[in-house]
C-alpha cells in the first residue's frame, strides 16, 4: 500500500491550476454569539475566525452513496408495524447551489418530534406521549436533478426552557453534505403560518429577513394527495462554486 505522495497538481492547458472555489455568504448564517439563545453564551469562540482560502481539503468532501439507504428511510410512516398518529405530510423539494445548479446524489438526514411534540431521545423529558409507530428519523439521497422526497408526520411544538414559556415552532431538522466540505449544512425547516415563529430565538437568529423566510416550507395543494396527505415544498440552496484559475 505504499504510494508516492503526489505533490504536483494537474494543470489546465494554459498552465493554470483550476480548482473550484465556493462562495462565502457574508451575513447569511446566524452569529455564533446570540443573546436570545442562552446556550450560545459559553459555546461560541470569542476570537475572530481565521480566513481559510479553499484548498483541496475544502473543495472535496464525502460522497456518500446509496448503500446507506434502506427502502423505508424516506417514509417515516412505514418504519413500524402500525401507522403513526398525526397528520400525514409529504415534504419534497430540490437541493441546488446558489447558481441554480442541482446538487445530485447527496445524502440528506432528518430528525423531528412526533405529532405530540416529543422526540424519541433519552434526554428528552417533555411530558408528551411517545408514539410506538414513529421514530422521527429519515434519510434520502437526492436524484440527478437534486430532488428529494420524504413522507412523514406533521411535527409538534415543544417547550425548551430557554426562557419563560419558551416553545419551539414545529420544525424538521435537516443535515446535508453537498458535494464539498464547504457545502456541509445543518439547518431546520419550519411550517408556514406557525404563530411561534416570531417568538423563536433560533429562527430569528438568522439576521436577514429574506434568508429567514427561506427556512419556511410552502404549502402546495398540487403536491397534496387527495384523501391521503398534505404536501409541502422546500428547496435547499447550498453555496455555489466558481472555477478559479490560479497563476
Amino acid at each position, binding site marked *: *500500500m505504499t504510494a508516492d505522495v503526489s505533490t504536483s497538481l494537474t494543470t489546465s492547458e494554459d498552465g493554470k491550476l483550476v480548482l473550484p472555489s465556493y462562495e462565502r455568504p457574508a451575513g447569511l448564517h*446566524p452569529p455564533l454569539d446570540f443573546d436570545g439563545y442562552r446556550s450560545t453564551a*459559553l459555546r461560541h469562540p470569542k476570537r475572530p475566525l481565521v480566513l481559510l482560502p479553499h484548498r483541496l*481539503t475544502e473543495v472535496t468532501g464525502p460522497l456518500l452513496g446509496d448503500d446507506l439507504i434502506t427502502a423505508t428511510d424516506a417514509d417515516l410512516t412505514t418504519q413500524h408495524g402500525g401507522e403513526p398518529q398525526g397528520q400525514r405530510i409529504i415534504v419534497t423539494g430540490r437541493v441546488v447551489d446558489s447558481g441554480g445548479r442541482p446538487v445530485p446524489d447527496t445524502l440528506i*438526514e432528518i430528525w423531528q418530534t412526533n405529532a405530540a411534540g416529543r422526540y424519541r431521545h433519552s434526554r428528552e423529558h417533555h411530558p408528551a406521549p411517545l408514539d410506538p409507530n414513529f421514530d422521527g428519523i*429519515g434519510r434520502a439521497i437526492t436524484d440527478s436533478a437534486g430532488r428529494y422526497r420524504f413522507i412523514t408526520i406533521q411535527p409538534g411544538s415543544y417547550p425548551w426552557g430557554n426562557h419563560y414559556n419558551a416553545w419551539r415552532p414545529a420544525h424538521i431538522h435537516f*443535515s446535508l453534505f453537498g458535494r*464539498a466540505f464547504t457545502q456541509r449544512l*445543518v439547518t431546520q425547516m419550519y411550517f408556514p403560518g406557525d404563530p411561534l415563529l416570531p417568538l423563536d430565538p433560533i429562527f430569528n437568529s438568522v439576521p436577514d429577513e429574506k434568508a429567514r423566510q427561506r427556512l419556511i416550507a410552502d404549502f402546495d395543494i398540487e403536491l397534496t394527495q387527495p384523501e391521503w396527505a398534505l404536501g409541502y415544498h422546500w428547496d435547499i440552496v*447550498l453555496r455555489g462554486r466558481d472555477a478559479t484559475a490560479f497563476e
Partner: protein
Amino acid sequence: MTPSQTVGPYFAMRLPWPDGPFVVPESTPGAITIIGRLYDGAGNIIPDGLIETWQASPDGRFAHPDDPRGATPAGYRSFRGFGRCPTAPDGSYRIITLKPGPVPAWDGSIEAPHLDVSVFARGLLDRVVTRMYFPDEMAANAADPVLCSIGSQQRRDTLIAVPEPEGQLRFDIRLQGDRETVFFDV
C-alpha cells in the same frame, strides 16, 4: 442560500452511525486512533456535541472528482475519508483513521498532513471548523500555509494533536476560553 440552524440537543436520534468513527476498519494496517474532548468556555465538557472529520488518504489524495489528480487509488478503497462521532457523557470522541499524506496547494506550497474538523452542538447556531495537524510533522507544519497564516505560536499549537502514551493522538477542542482552539472561516 439556506441559512444554518443549530443541530440542537436531539441529533443523536439520527446522525451517529454505528461505523461513523471508523474512517477505516480498526484492523487496517497503520490505523491510528484520535481521541479528544470537547470543552465550553467554563472549561466544562460538552456531552452533546458532534465531531466530523474529512481528510486525504495516506498518499495525499481525495476520492472526489475535484481532485485534479483523479480518484483515490484502489489501495485505499475501504478508506472513507470521513469520520463522525458524537461526544460521550464525558465529552470524549474518537476517530479511527489512517494518517493523511501531505496535500499540494494551488500556490505551489505543500500542506502538512491534516484533517478538517467540524463541530456541531446545541448552542452552536452554525458549525465551527478547525484543523488537526500531527505532532511528528514539525518541518511540514512549519511550512504549512494554513498554520503559517496564524500569527501566534500559542494559537497554532491548539491545532496540533498531542501524542498519548499508548500511541493514540489527543486533539481536545475548546470552543472558548484561554486556550480557545483556532477556528476557521471557511
